[in-house]
């Protein structure tokens, strides 16, 4: 007889899964609208100290300067996203972000870096026509999350379950989401929460790759859960790779980022033969080319056998001088030093590193998914960034759409009916998740996760082709089947193998959706690069959407609606038609 863990039943108006920027902003906004809203937040790690908003280095893009304009920011975002963004969402991002920065500063107490005269400082960032990135040194995320956390701590209407992860969403007979089943790792108990509205904001699935930059507990949980209740996904093939993830041998720190600004300031990339290979790939822009181009070039060098023995390339910043580096990139110099690299006097090994999932749950302007009662925000949602995300738009996305979700949920719960009983369903799901805890023998979840990461890195990574990806599909499916039989035996509290098993289940979902989407998109656009289709194709100004229907995947391609900006190639095409 397997040991049954206790099931704690809770009730709330709003359930928020994930407490990064999106989750906490949603709580903030819902509380502002009605301070008596009962909000329950489940965090996988410690409140405010886990997730990826915490790890933001660069900054937050917003239009504050009178010489800048929403139109310019919007245009940069759309051009960066290679015109497959949802333009309404992108416009909302651009439009809301200045208000949110005011809110972060004046309501939550963040203090971003200032100019000598005391006004806010905005730094330049790649791919932008104006200096509009608000930042706090190179640790912007800590400032945002620490202050949001402090705000949350003082709210009486908000209950926070720390080290509690979502397992599955609960639905009523109509398929409406009415809460979630959670696992409290701290107490070793299941928690079923009945809620009128549920927000998934747990972050994307970039950790499905061998070399990745996000925090470790991030595992596409929200997408996995939403997939299991039938949510629709968009742009799943779009995975951004950051060109300069630190390569620290076998250390877990591998993939941790060296800031983009380093290349912007003139750092050079070399292969193992000392060749400045960017000359071959992007002779005019060299290392200052966009993230996708540099990542791809580095990856190709490595794959062609011109990488270092441990599979990376070398970044060289020595020519900029000790003083310049210490003045401007102290954080990066220190980070290198922590792992025994000397950025000041020698070359440092870097590699492309999976960074941000542009795709995700398809949402509308109010962050509603296709399923009633289910909201998504932040990296869990897709469509805002299209084919490529600009540096500094990521945290803006989380904050802006977190807030929108908060507003929308506060409105939604006003009319929503109180959900019925969910304990039977919760108990069924609980038994499913309990199985690995009581299993004897079975697969090693750590090994399966490694296997998944390797498959994804080799076959559906920076540079893709149809043949490799077709090969990857059965491997992913095999891993997904095996992981269901994995061994998570041990104590019910802080059980690493059990949690890794759950992570891998969710990552498996993301991986399969990503790979299948990538096979469909027969062109190269933004972060998605196909060796067999290396050109951009005007026919592919479409989004690929997918949703599970009766145990099968229903694929669709939706033409992009150009509500505000048309791509130049389309304008050309129309011109030639007229003539």
């Amino acid at each position: 007889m397997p040991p049954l863990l206790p099931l704690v039943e809770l009730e709330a108006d709003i359930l928020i899964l994930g407490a990064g920027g999106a989750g906490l902003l949603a709580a903030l906004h819902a509380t502002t609208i009605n301070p008596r809203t009962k909000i329950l937040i489940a965090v996988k790690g410690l409140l405010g100290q886990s997730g990826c908003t915490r790890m933001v280095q660069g900054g937050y893009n917003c239009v504050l300067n009178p010489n800048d304009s929403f139109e310019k920011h919007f245009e940069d975002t759309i051009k960066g996203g290679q015109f497959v963004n949802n333009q309404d969402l992108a416009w909302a991002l651009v439009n809301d972000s200045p208000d949110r920065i005011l809110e972060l500063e004046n309501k939550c107490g963040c203090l971003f870096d200032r100019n000598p005269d005391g006004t806010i400082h905005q730094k330049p960032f790649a791919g932008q026509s104006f200096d509009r990135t608000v930042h706090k040194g190179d640790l912007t995320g800590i400032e945002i999350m620490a202050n949001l956390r402090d705000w949350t701590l003082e709210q009486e209407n908000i209950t926070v379950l720390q080290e509690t992860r979502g397992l599955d969403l609960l639905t009523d007979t109509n398929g409406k989401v009415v809460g979630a089943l959670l696992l409290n790792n701290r107490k070793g108990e299941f928690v079923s929460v009945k809620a009128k509205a549920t927000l998934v904001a747990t972050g994307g699935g970039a950790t499905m790759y061998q070399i990745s930059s996000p925090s470790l507990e991030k595992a596409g949980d929200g997408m996995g859960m939403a997939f299991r209740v039938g949510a629709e996904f968009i742009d799943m093939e779009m995975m951004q790779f950051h060109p300069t993830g630190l390569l620290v041998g076998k250390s877990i720190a591998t993939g941790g980022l060296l800031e983009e600004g380093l290349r912007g300031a003139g750092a050079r990339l070399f292969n193992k033969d000392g060749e400045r290979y960017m000359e071959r790939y992007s002779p005019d822009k060299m290392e200052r080319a966009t993230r996708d181009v540099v990542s791809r070039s580095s990856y190709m060098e490595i794959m062609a056998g011109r990488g270092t023995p441990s599979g990376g390339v070398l970044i060289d910043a020595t020519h900029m001088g000790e003083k310049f580096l210490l003045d401007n990139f102290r954080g990066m110099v220190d980070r290198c030093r922590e792992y025994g690299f000397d950025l000041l006097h020698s070359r440092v090994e870097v590699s492309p590193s999976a960074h941000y999932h542009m795709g995700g749950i398809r949402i509308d302007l109010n962050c509603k998914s296709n399923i009633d009662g289910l909201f998504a925000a932040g990296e869990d949602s897709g469509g805002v960034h299209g084919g490529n995300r600009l540096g500094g738009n990521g945290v803006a996305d989380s904050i802006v759409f977190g807030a929108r979700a908060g507003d929308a949920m506060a409105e939604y719960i006003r009319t929503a009916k109180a959900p019925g009983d969910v304990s039977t369903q919760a108990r069924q799901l609980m038994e499913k998740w309990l199985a690995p805890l009581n299993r004897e023998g079975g697969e090693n979840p750590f090994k399966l996760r490694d296997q998944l990461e390797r498959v994804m890195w080799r076959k559906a990574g920076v540079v893709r082709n149809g043949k490799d990806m077709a090969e990857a599909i059965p491997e992913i499916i095999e891993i997904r089947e095996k992981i269901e039989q994995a061994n998570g035996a041990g104590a019910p509290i802080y059980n690493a193998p059990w949690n890794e098993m759950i992570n891998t289940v969710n990552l498996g979902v993301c991986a399969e959706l990503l790979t299948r989407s990538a096979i469909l998109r027969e062109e190269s656009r933004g972060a998605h690069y196909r060796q067999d289709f290396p050109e951009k194709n005007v026919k592919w100004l479409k989004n690929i959407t997918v949703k599970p229907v009766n145990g099968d995947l229903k694929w669709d391609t939706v033409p992009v609606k150009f509500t505000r900006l048309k791509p130049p190639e389309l304008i050309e095409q129309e011109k030639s038609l007229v003539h």
Partner: protein
Amino acid sequence: MATYQIRVARSGSDGATDSFTVELDHRMTVLDALFLIQREQDPTLSFRCSCRVGMCGTCAMRINWQPRLACQTRVLTLKADTIVVEPLAHLPVMKDLVVAMDPFFEQWKRVKPALHPDPKRDPKKLAVVPPTSEFGKQAQGKRDCITCGACYAACGIVGSNEEYLGPAAINKAMLRLMDPRDNAVDERLEELNDENGVWRCHTQFNCVAACPKGINLTDSIMKMKRSLLFPKKFHDKRNFVDNP
């Protein structure tokens, strides 16, 4: 590659440690050692870690007696073949190296860590804070706190008096008190001026030695002690903001 003996404190019996032998290269950290142990030798080992690059502050633990971030402690720099890894002191152990941060945050909450915006300010305007102003200067390095709890675990006073605010909370209170946008001056001053507030600090500097972010916490505490001689000045702090 070199062989290290890692002695990890295990919950269960009191003070018991388990010894593991791991092979680590010269770039690897204590966190890597723990991951290797968890993956290959003993999956029941528990520890906390989120970002693994020194930003989240969840992997603080006592490494060879000193509170440190495991992800920032290269084994090579410890200059020892045997590494003793224990949970942070002064905090209840949940399992193995995982401690409950609740006592730390209970104190943190006492100083009202959130901004209590001044209703007289225009919320549509950003505060003007020249980096050369007093707040600007203090905010420079002191905002970097990642609430890892290393200072709390290093402080000798916390060891004998769990009601003491602790260095991190006082540092936070100082930043809020200096903040021109903030209004909760009296409440915070009351907590700081409590018998178990700033007055418990006896400048041991353990917090300064332990802080992985290099924040001079003793300096913050001393500033607060001195400021309490003239607490009125916090009410006048809005003077350097051109935003009525």
